C-alpha cells in the first residue's frame, strides 16, 4: 500500500515536472534542461499506454494515452511517431484533462418553452429526424443543412456527406475548415490541380532556410517549430519570420521582417521580380513543368448577400508575366509594404540560391485573406520559378490548423462543392460517388449551394430552416457574428448542436446532443502532411454521449436510408473506412488499409504497394508520375503546374480617420480555438484566463494605456471592451492591434468583417479597421 502510494506520488511529481518543462518550452523555444532530469520523467508505471493522434491542432502529433481503471490519466509524446518524435506541446500533454470537465454534456437536451429539458437519446434522435422530414417536405431539400468541422473524424464527415449529398440530395454541407483553409485548397487546385502539400514534415530535416509567411508557428504549430529550432542547433539553418506583428516566433527567428497587412501579395511578386532579374530562374524546370496564367482582377470582397464570382483563367507567356512584374520592383514594393528593398532582396536571394534548400511555411495569415487564393498562388510561383519544390527540403508547405481539416474536410470533401473524390459539378465524379454510396446518380445535385458565410446568411434570410452543427462553435467563430447569432434565434429555424460542453452555440440550439469525445470513440484524423492516423476507443463515453458518426447514422436510418447506412454498431468505423477508401482508389490518392493504420503511427497517401508517398509529383518518390520525367504535375491535364499572374489589391476595409487602426485576430498556444475544451483544463485556463487587446507600446504610452486597463474597440459592426496587453506576448506594429478569439466572454468576432476571398470564400479575420479608446 505504502509503496504504491509512493509510486503514485513520484509519478505525479514527474508529471508536474513535465508540465512545467512543456510550459517553459513554449515560452522559450529551444530551452534545455539537464538530461538526467528529463530521464526521470515517467516511463509508464502501471498504465496501459495506447496510441492516438493528438486532437488539438493540425500538426497531428502521435501521442500515447495512459489509461488506468477506465480513465485517461496521462499523455506523452509517441517516440515512434515521425511527426513529433516523442515531443508534445502544453495542449497535448494536458489534452486528456479536457475530457473530464465538471459540466460535460451527458444527456440530450430539448428546448421546450424556452427551457432545456433532459430527454433520452432515442427521443432526441427521433425529433431530429422528424424535423428534417417535415422541413424537407415543406420547404425542399435545400432547407436542411449540416455544418461540421476539421475536428470531425474521417467517418463523421463521411457519413454526413453521404447522408446529405448522396441520400437527401442537398449540397448544404459545410465545415468550419472553410474559415481556416479554403484558400489553401483553392491555391493548390489553381496551381497544381490537386489539393494538399506535395512535401511532408521530413522536409524540415533537409531544408537550409525556413521562411514563415504570417505564421506564428511557435504558438500555433509548437512541435513543428521545436523541430525547426532543433535543426538550427544541429545544422545552423536560418529561420526568417515574415509577419505583420512581432510574436514569439519572431523573437526566436534569426530575422524578423514586418510587412503592412495585405501587402504580402506585393512582396511575393517582388521576390519573383528579383528571381527573374538576377537570372535565378530554373529555366529547364520552368520550360518542362510550368505554364503561365492570369485571372480576373478587382473581384470584390463578397460583402453583399448572394455575391458570386467565377475566375476566368487565361494563358499568358513568360514575357507577359515578366512585364507584369515590372510594377513590383523591390523599390516600388517597399513603398506599399513597408518592407525595405534590402529585405526583399535578402529573401529573394535565399530563394534564388541554387545551393540552398528553402521551405516556406504558412497557415492562417495567408489563408484568412481576401486574396487568399492569390497569395497561395504567389508563394507557389516563387518555388516553381526556382524549381524548389517536391524534393526533400524544397517545399512550399501549407500548414493546417485542425487535426483533420485535411483528413476529413478536404479529403472526404465536406464542403458544398466537394465529393469524397472530385466535385459535384463533374458528372463522372457524381457517378463514382453514387455507385459507392448505392444511390441513384440523380440524387447528387450538380450545383453547389452555400459556402459557410453564405450558409449562415441563408439561415438568416430563411432559405435554410434546419441546421445541424457538430464539433464546432460558430457562435464564437463566425465573422460579423451578431448577424448570424440573431439569425439562429429567428422564428422558424431549428438548430441541432452536437458537442461535449455547453458553448455559446449550444445556447442557440433547439436540441443539444452530447457527443463522445476523441478517445471515447474510435476514429481517424488526417494531418497537414497527408498522414492518416487511427485511434481506438480507449474509455467509455460520458453519460449517454454518442459519437458524431453514430448520431448521423441513427438519424439516417430514421429517414429511411437503412440500405445505405447498413453499418453495424460494433464494426461501423471499419466498415465506413473501408467504403470510404474505395472513393480514392488509384495511385494518386490511395489510402492505407485500416490494419496498417492500426499498427503504425499513421500512413501518408498516396499509399501504394505498401508504401507511403513522402514527396508527390517527383517520380523518384511518387508512383503516380507517368510522364517519364523527373517531375510530373499530373493534377493538371497538361501535366504542368501553373505560375499565376496575380496583382496586389488592397483590403476591403482599411484604417481611416474614424477607424484608424488595423484589427487582427488569432489564437494563443494555451487554447484550442474557442477554448471550449482548453478553458476547462485548469493549468491552461490559469495560464491564459481571458482575452486581451495587444497594443503597440509607443502608442499605448501616448494613449496612457497600461496593461490591464480597459480599452474600447469600435468597428462599423459594433464595440467591445477588453483589457490591454502592452509589451507582453506579442507586439503589434504602430497602427495595429491584435485580439485572440478564444474567449466566449469577449466575443471579438462581434466586430470583425465578413469579407472573404472571392475564389475560396474564406473570410479574412486578420484585417478590418477599428477605433481604439481608453475607457
Amino acid at each position, binding site marked *: 500500500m505504502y509503496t504504491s502510494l509512493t509510486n503514485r506520488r513520484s509519478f505525479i511529481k514527474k508529471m*508536474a515536472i513535465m508540465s*512545467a518543462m512543456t510550459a517553459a518550452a513554449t515560452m522559450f523555444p529551444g530551452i534545455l534542461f539537464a538530461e538526467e532530469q528529463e530521464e526521470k520523467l515517467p516511463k509508464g508505471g502501471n498504465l496501459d499506454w495506447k496510441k492516438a493522434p493528438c486532437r488539438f491542432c493540425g500538426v497531428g502529433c502521435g501521442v500515447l494515452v495512459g489509461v488506468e481503471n477506465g480513465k485517461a490519466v496521462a499523455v506523452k509524446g509517441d517516440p515512434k511517431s515521425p511527426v513529433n518524435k516523442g515531443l508534445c506541446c502544453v495542449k497535448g500533454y494536458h489534452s486528456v484533462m479536457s475530457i473530464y470537465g465538471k459540466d460535460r454534456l451527458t444527456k440530450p437536451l430539448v428546448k421546450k418553452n424556452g427551457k432545456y429539458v433532459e430527454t433520452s437519446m432515442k427521443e432526441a434522435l427521433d425529433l431530429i429526424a422528424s424535423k428534417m422530414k417535415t422541413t424537407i417536405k415543406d420547404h425542399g431539400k435545400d432547407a436542411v443543412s449540416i455544418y461540421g468541422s476539421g475536428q470531425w473524424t474521417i467517418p463523421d464527415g463521411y457519413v454526413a456527406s453521404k447522408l446529405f449529398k448522396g441520400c437527401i440530395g442537398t449540397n448544404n454541407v459545410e465545415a468550419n475548415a472553410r474559415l481556416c483553409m479554403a484558400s489553401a485548397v483553392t491555391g493548390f487546385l489553381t496551381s497544381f490541380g490537386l489539393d494538399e502539400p506535395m512535401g511532408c514534415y521530413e522536409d524540415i530535416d533537409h531544408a537550409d532556410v525556413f521562411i514563415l509567411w504570417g505564421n506564428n508557428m511557435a504558438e500555433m504549430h509548437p512541435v513543428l517549430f521545436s523541430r525547426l529550432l532543433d535543426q538550427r542547433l544541429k545544422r545552423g539553418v536560418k529561420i526568417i519570420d515574415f509577419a505583420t506583428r512581432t510574436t514569439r516566433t519572431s523573437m526566436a527567428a534569426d530575422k524578423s521582417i514586418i510587412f503592412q497587412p495585405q501587402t504580402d501579395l506585393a512582396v511575393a511578386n517582388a521576390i519573383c521580380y528579383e528571381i527573374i532579374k538576377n537570372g535565378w530562374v530554373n529555366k529547364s524546370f520552368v520550360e518542362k513543368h510550368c505554364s503561365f496564367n492570369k485571372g480576373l482582377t478587382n473581384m470584390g470582397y463578397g460583402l453583399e448577400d448572394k455575391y458570386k464570382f467565377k475566375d476566368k483563367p487565361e494563358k499568358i507567356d513568360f514575357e507577359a508575366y515578366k512585364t507584369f512584374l515590372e510594377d513590383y520592383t523591390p523599390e516600388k514594393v517597399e513603398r506599399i509594404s513597408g518592407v525595405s528593398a534590402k529585405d526583399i532582396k535578402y529573401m529573394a536571394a535565399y530563394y534564388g540560391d541554387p545551393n540552398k534548400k528553402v521551405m516556406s511555411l504558412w497557415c492562417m495569415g495567408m489563408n484568412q485573406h481576401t486574396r487568399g487564393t492569390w497569395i497561395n498562388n504567389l508563394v507557389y510561383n516563387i518555388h516553381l520559378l526556382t524549381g524548389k519544390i517536391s524534393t526533400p527540403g524544397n517545399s512550399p508547405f501549407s500548414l493546417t490548423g485542425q487535426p483533420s481539416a485535411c483528413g476529413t474536410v478536404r479529403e472526404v470533401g465536406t464542403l458544398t462543392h466537394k465529393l469524397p473524390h472530385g466535385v459535384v459539378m463533374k458528372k463522372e465524379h457524381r457517378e463514382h460517388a453514387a455507385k459507392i454510396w448505392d444511390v441513384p446518380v440523380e440524387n447528387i445535385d450538380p450545383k453547389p449551394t452555400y459556402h459557410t458565410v453564405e450558409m449562415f446568411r441563408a439561415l438568416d434570410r430563411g432559405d435554410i430552416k434546419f441546421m445541424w452543427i457538430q464539433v464546432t462553435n460558430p457562435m464564437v467563430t463566425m465573422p460579423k457574428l451578431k448577424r448570424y447569432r440573431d439569425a439562429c434565434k429567428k422564428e422558424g429555424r431549428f438548430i441541432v448542436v452536437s458537442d461535449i460542453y455547453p458553448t455559446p452555440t449550444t445556447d442557440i440550439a433547439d436540441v443539444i446532443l452530447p457527443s463522445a469525445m476523441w478517445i471515447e470513440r474510435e476514429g481517424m484524423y488526417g494531418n497537414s502532411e497527408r498522414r492518416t492516423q487511427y485511434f481506438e476507443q480507449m474509455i467509455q463515453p460520458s453519460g449517454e454521449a454518442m459519437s458524431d458518426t453514430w448520431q448521423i447514422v441513427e438519424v439516417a436510418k430514421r429517414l429511411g436510408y437503412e440500405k445505405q447506412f447498413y453499418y453495424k454498431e460494433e464494426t461501423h468505423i471499419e466498415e465506413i473506412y473501408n467504403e470510404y477508401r474505395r472513393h480514392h482508389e488509384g495511385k494518386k490518392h490511395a489510402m492505407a488499409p485500416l490494419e496498417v493504420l492500426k499498427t503504425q503511427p499513421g500512413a501518408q497517401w498516396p499509399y501504394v504497394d505498401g508504401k507511403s508517398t513522402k514527396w508527390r509529383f517527383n517520380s523518384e518518390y511518387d508512383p503516380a508520375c507517368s510522364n517519364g520525367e523527373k517531375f510530373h504535375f499530373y493534377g493538371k491535364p497538361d501535366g504542368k503546374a501553373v505560375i499565376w499572374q496575380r496583382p496586389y489589391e488592397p483590403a476591403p476595409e482599411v484604417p481611416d480617420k474614424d477607424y484608424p487602426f488595423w484589427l487582427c485576430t488569432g489564437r494563443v498556444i494555451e487554447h484550442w480555438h474557442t477554448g471550449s475544451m482548453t478553458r476547462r483544463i485548469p*493549468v491552461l485556463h490559469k495560464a491564459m484566463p481571458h482575452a486581451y487587446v495587444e497594443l503597440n507600446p509607443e502608442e499605448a504610452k501616448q494613449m496612457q494605456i497600461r496593461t490591464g486597463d480597459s480599452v474600447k474597440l469600435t468597428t462599423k459592426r459594433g464595440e467591445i471592451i477588453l483589457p490591454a496587453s502592452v509589451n507582453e506576448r506579442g507586439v503589434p506594429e504602430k497602427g495595429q492591434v491584435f485580439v485572440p478569439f478564444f474567449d466566449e466572454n469577449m466575443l471579438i468576432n462581434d466586430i470583425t468583417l465578413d469579407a472573404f476571398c472571392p475564389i475560396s470564400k474564406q473570410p479574412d479575420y486578420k484585417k478590418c479597421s477599428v477605433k481604439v479608446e481608453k475607457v
Partner: protein
Amino acid sequence: MPIKSYLAHPHNGKKEILTKAINALEHCEVIPAENENLLIVVTETDNKEQEDLLKEKIENIESLKLLAMVSGFNTK
C-alpha cells in the same frame, strides 16, 4: 498532499543565487534551465497550509522576479 510545479523567473544574472535560495528550502526541488533564465520549481508538501507558507517564502526571495504556477495535483 499537494504537489505543484512552478516556473520561477530570476532577476537578470541572479539564476544561481535563486537556485541556491530555493534549494535551501525544505519540500522543494529546483531544475534550472541550462540555456535560459528560468527555473522549474516543484513543491511537495503535506497540506495546503504548508504549501501556502512555502509559496510565500519563495515569493519573498529577492532574486525572484516572478513565480508562475504550471500544474497542481493533490495525491490524497
